[in-house]
């Protein structure tokens, strides 16, 4: 599998996905 960080779009999309994941974890930890 190609490393997404090798492309700019892959990097930006990975950052956006990570943001959504972390947002949901934090929201859950604060009680939903």
């Amino acid at each position, binding site marked *: 599998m190609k490393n997404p960080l090798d492309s700019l779009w892959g*990097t*930006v999309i990975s950052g956006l996905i*990570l943001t959504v994941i972390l947002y949901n974890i934090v929201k859950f930890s604060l009680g939903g």
Partner: protein
Amino acid sequence: MDFVPAISRWLHLLAGVMWIGLLYYFNFVQVAAMKAAGADGTAGGITKHVAPRALLFFRWAALITWLSGAALLGKAFVAAFTFQGPYVVIGVGAWLGTIMLFNVWGLIWPNQKKILGIVPATDEEKNKARRIAFLASRTNTMLSIPMLFFMAAGAHTAIYFGF
């Protein structure tokens, strides 16, 4: 005016803009420019005159951003880094910023010194350094996206988390 938090916040924003601005310059502009410049034999100018200056402001801005951020957290520093209660929001941003600072001083700068010839390195070592510095820089670009989200959210929890 509450002097320390006011100056810390201002400095944090100024240095942060310089740090992330130069990070985006490297990733969105210089990487592609170096590829094109390498093809027509003009990369030397960037390597000699632009990259060292950009890296100088980049790495010190990173440190000033972190230190002013720590000053801004003040008594909430430990609560943020241990994700206590509502401090979890700014804590995630602070941790992402801390990982990014480590990448700058622990991975990007030591490897850039080899690439730019500031410290001696063989061609093989330079190639390895190029890959490590590139991936660390790309990792920071990726991490900057949630980092900036949580920095903004930490100061405006009502908008982002409803409290």
